């Protein structure tokens, strides 16, 4: 089975093609160039490196967020279109889960995405080599509140993103989307037409509007 996997939910870009859940080729970047420019081009490149035709793709797997609103929308838009136009199923996976499994860390793992103003997108997973448990589901929380709920864990952050939260010890991680297929149960089958990012937050304008109702 050939899977095409995409993660554009933050600054880093990860595009991979897996054969039977094992990485055949992967392109990872971690610098400031917009995903809008690079994503489709890198899909073409990664397939060409792996010597796989687009018609051979059996499924699409995309990081659904949380993360940069614009970034995650690009991945989701491209994933929806690929699924529809190639006529293959699309699966989504939490961007936090991608971070959690990218470094092959086991045990209690807290992947974090800095959300500014002392807040993070974070989750707690207990990860084993071939299974995992989601202890705290992905959420938008104050970092202090999240860390108070966690006893012992490895904190994972992409240190090449801007870090504004007060955190002393963490392990740097670059998202590698090819790793998620080790955990089939983390993948959620989606309806391509209905698929939207998991922003975890409504927009500021809608928040203000709701407050005024």
């Amino acid at each position: 089975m050939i899977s095409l996997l995409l993660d554009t939910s933050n600054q880093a870009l990860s595009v991979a093609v897996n054969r039977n859940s094992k990485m055949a080729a992967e392109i990872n970047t971690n610098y400031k160039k917009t995903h809008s420019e690079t994503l489709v081009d890198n899909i073409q490149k990664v397939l060409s490196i792996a010597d796989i035709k687009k018609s051979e793709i059996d499924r699409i797997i995309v990081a659904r967020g949380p993360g940069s609103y614009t970034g995650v929308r690009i991945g989701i838009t491209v994933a929806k279109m690929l699924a529809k136009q190639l006529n293959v199923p699309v699966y989504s996976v939490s961007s936090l889960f991608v971070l959690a499994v990218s470094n092959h860390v086991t045990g209690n793992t807290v992947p974090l995405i800095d959300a500014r103003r002392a807040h993070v997108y974070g989750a707690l997973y207990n990860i084993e080599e071939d299974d995992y448990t989601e202890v705290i589901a992905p959420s938008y929380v104050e970092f202090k509140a999240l860390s108070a709920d966690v006893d012992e864990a490895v904190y994972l952050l992409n240190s090449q993103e801007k870090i504004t939260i007060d955190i002393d010890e963490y392990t740097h991680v670059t998202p590698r989307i090819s790793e998620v297929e080790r955990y089939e149960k983390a993948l959620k089958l989606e309806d391509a037409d209905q698929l939207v990012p998991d922003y975890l937050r409504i927009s500021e304008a809608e928040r203000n509007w709701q407050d005024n109702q």
Partner: protein
Amino acid sequence: MSKDIKILAIETSCDETAASVIQNGNEILSNVVVSQIDSHKRFGGVVPEVASRHHVEAITHVIDQALEDAELEPSDLTAVAVTEGPGLIGALLIGINAAKTFAYVHDLPLVPVHHIAGHIYAAQLEKPLVFPLIALVVSGGHTELIYMKDHMSFEIIGETRDDAVGEAFDKVARVIDLPYPGGPHIDKLAQSGEDTFNFPRGLMKEETFDFSFSGLKSAVINKLHNYNQKGIEVNKNDVAASFQASVTDVLTAKTFAALKEYDVENLIIAGGVAGNSEIRSRFSSMCIDKNINLQIPKLKFCTDNAAMIGAAAYHLYNKDHLADLTLNGRNFIDIEEYAF
């Protein structure tokens, strides 16, 4: 084998998610528009983040519908076109990435289109453009007089120095408590009002084809404030009619001066504000008097749509103006750059 050029066009630059299939630049095989207006009404204007979220929800539906209505398969298409800009960047990126993916999967050429060129080429959906022409582009984000000596040749000869005309409509509508979008509401009120206020006509006496609407907008606001303080009840119909009369006077004066100066007999009025009934009727009667060939697209082709993008894309495709898969959105693009 058929030599017909069939282009799937996608437009997501603001608050409409749209897709269309256009054959040979002027035959509308399908035209699908999903409007977000009801959502943005809550905020009194378009909120970029909300617009981007709605585009993601609607994008595959409009593309499917456009192909289904046209009774075509992707393999029947010649190219994919998409609005590259100007517009809201986050909104543009949805259409652009959808278009790039479609082009990549089906091995089709990708044609990037300037949004304003699209508005002008909406006229081509009704009859071929005749050159040289002057286009008056009036919308929520634009007020421009553009001289075109041929296809895809744009020279800006006048533009607004402050507010776009549609922006002025929306702001004035807000001060007289009309819902968003204000243009059609002002139009409606004005029909039973009169130009009693004689608001200023910006830059009317100056030798320029440029426009200014901020003075007019301030004059309306000040007048209402003044009446309010004195406890005089204002006739909103007259405010709407007076405002609209000022706008129309300025637009007609500048446009006819430009037609004379450039010795041009063909005029296109494009963009959302071209739907205004006073603007339409005044230009129509003046063009008859002055022997000018006037084209104003039907209402549904004045507001944002993808059919106009497909109409413009036809010429860009013929001129081999194509993009590769690294195409990005741009919130501002000088239309004079689009001279090919």
